[in-house]
């Protein structure tokens, strides 16, 4: 079970702020492809955070059970 958090216009596209995917483990690249197939997220500018740290979308990273993934549109604080 991988948890993905959505924010801003990506939450809008996913019609959800968080979901739990029925996978125990997968690469970050595969995860992003899966999410794009569901919500066409590639149309949006966004960054990815894994366990609250920004990572490159291309990074060879294995996402597993306890990891917290978040898709972050451009920041707009202030």
């Amino acid at each position: 079970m991988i948890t993905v958090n959505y924010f801003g216009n990506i939450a809008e596209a996913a019609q959800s702020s968080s979901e739990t995917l029925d996978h125990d483990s997968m690469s970050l690249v595969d995860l992003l492809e899966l999410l794009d197939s569901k919500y066409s997220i590639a149309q949006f500018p966004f960054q990815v955070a894994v366990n609250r740290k920004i990572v490159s979308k291309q990074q060879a990273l294995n996402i597993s059970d306890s990891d917290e993934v978040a898709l972050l549109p451009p920041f707009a604080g202030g």
Partner: protein
Amino acid sequence: MKKVFLEGAISPEFIADSIAKHQGKHSIGAHNIFLGQVRADEVGDNKVVAIEYTTYEEMANEKLYEIREAAFEKFNLTCLHIYHSLGEVKVGDICIFVFVSSPRRKQVYEATEWLVNQVKEHVPIFGKEILDNADHQWKVNS
């Protein structure tokens, strides 16, 4: 860890309270305060009437902690406070309040500027600009 996020607009009374709380610290000689106020920007034929803020709070708090530590390393500060609104903030209302205090004035302006820029660049906060025709668009910092 201090609380940064507040529900709704930041009131002038809240700011006055924060100032008053620093008047017992007699080593402080200079305060600098930055306030961000929601502007009625024009978007085509429409106008912004409010911004709805959301955040990824766990990550935001981690980032804010790092920013705070770095600021104390970088500048000679007695204390610093950062507050940001969540939820709806109407045009004319205040959504960010950065408050820096130091024995002397020299560094306070730069410290405030640095803190505001760090929050804008590195803290995951998202803003939905609500227009007067009830449409919306997603704010992007410039």
